[in-house]
């Protein structure tokens, strides 16, 4: 928990610095900086695991049951949005479109802005960013209360990249393959599901 608080503090520090424009002078405007850091991070995560002598044993113990996890994540997320659409002032199809971002905020918000306008697009952006941040912040708690699979489910499509290091740290490296598989399936499903619910 201490560690994830530290992570969120870094995030908040970044938000505050850029909000008060303190960082403009220090950092040249390069939209790819976060991508390069992510690449460095993934290289280190890979290296740390390749270095582990038991890594191939861990790969073998993949349960077929885990193949269903992305489906349960998607159904859980959509069920939550369907229930919320009853009490909130958003249409069912719109709510489901926002929910099918599965924390993949960049892509989902772009599609939704284009199809449904800026308001819903912004909502999608916020919802999916919050989902990613809350997963990072609550990782130890989610694992403790609901178990290791819930942490992966919570991360949605981001279990492939941004939340993967935190998942491996919280759940252990044996969850590498389930997390990557889960992230990939949901990643691919985002453009299809979001466009589908936008068309309804």
């Amino acid at each position, binding site marked *: 928990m201490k560690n994830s608080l530290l*992570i969120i503090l*870094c*995030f*908040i520090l*970044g*938000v*505050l*610095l850029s909000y008060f424009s303190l960082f403009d002078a220090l950092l040249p405007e390069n939209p790819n900086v*976060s991508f390069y*850091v*992510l*690449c460095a*991070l*993934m*290289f*280190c995560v*890979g290296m*740390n695991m*390749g*270095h*582990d002598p038991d*890594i191939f044993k861990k790969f073998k113990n993949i349960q077929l*049951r885990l193949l*269903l996890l992305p489906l*349960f994540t*998607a*159904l*859980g*997320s959509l069920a*939550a*949005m369907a*229930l*919320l659409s009853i009490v*909130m002032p958003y249409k069912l199809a719109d*709510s489901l479109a926002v929910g099918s971002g599965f924390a993949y905020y960049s892509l989902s918000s772009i599609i939704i802005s284009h199809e449904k306008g800026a308001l819903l697009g*912004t909502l999608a*952006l*916020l919802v*999916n*960013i*919050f*989902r990613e941040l809350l997963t990072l912040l*609550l990782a130890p708690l*989610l694992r403790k*209360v*609901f*178990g290791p699979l*819930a*942490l*992966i*489910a*919570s991360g*949605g499509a981001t279990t*492939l*990249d*941004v939340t993967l*290091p*935190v998942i491996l*740290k919280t759940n252990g490296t044996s969850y590498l393959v389930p997390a*990557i598989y889960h992230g990939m399936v949901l990643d691919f499903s985002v453009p299809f599901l979001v466009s589908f619910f936008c068309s309804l």
Partner: protein
Amino acid sequence: MFKILGIMCLGLVSGYLLRRRKMRFMPVLINILIMVLLFILGIETGSNKQIIENLDSLGGDALLMAISMILFSSLGALLLEKRKKPQKDEK
């Protein structure tokens, strides 16, 4: 996405080749990189006017939606987790 996976595989291979060397600094380095990444994501979020300007009006709705989805997908995952245990006992 495939670039990122490719880079991780590259890391896996290099880690495997260097497996005789001690790499105690690696978990610390990973931690630092996670923090740097989140710091940069924070900067990107803070400088995104679309997010900051709508935080007042849409932030509450968005937070409720995000928490509900995390809760419900966690419950979905819990179903899979619980079904796993009796199977293990049978073996």
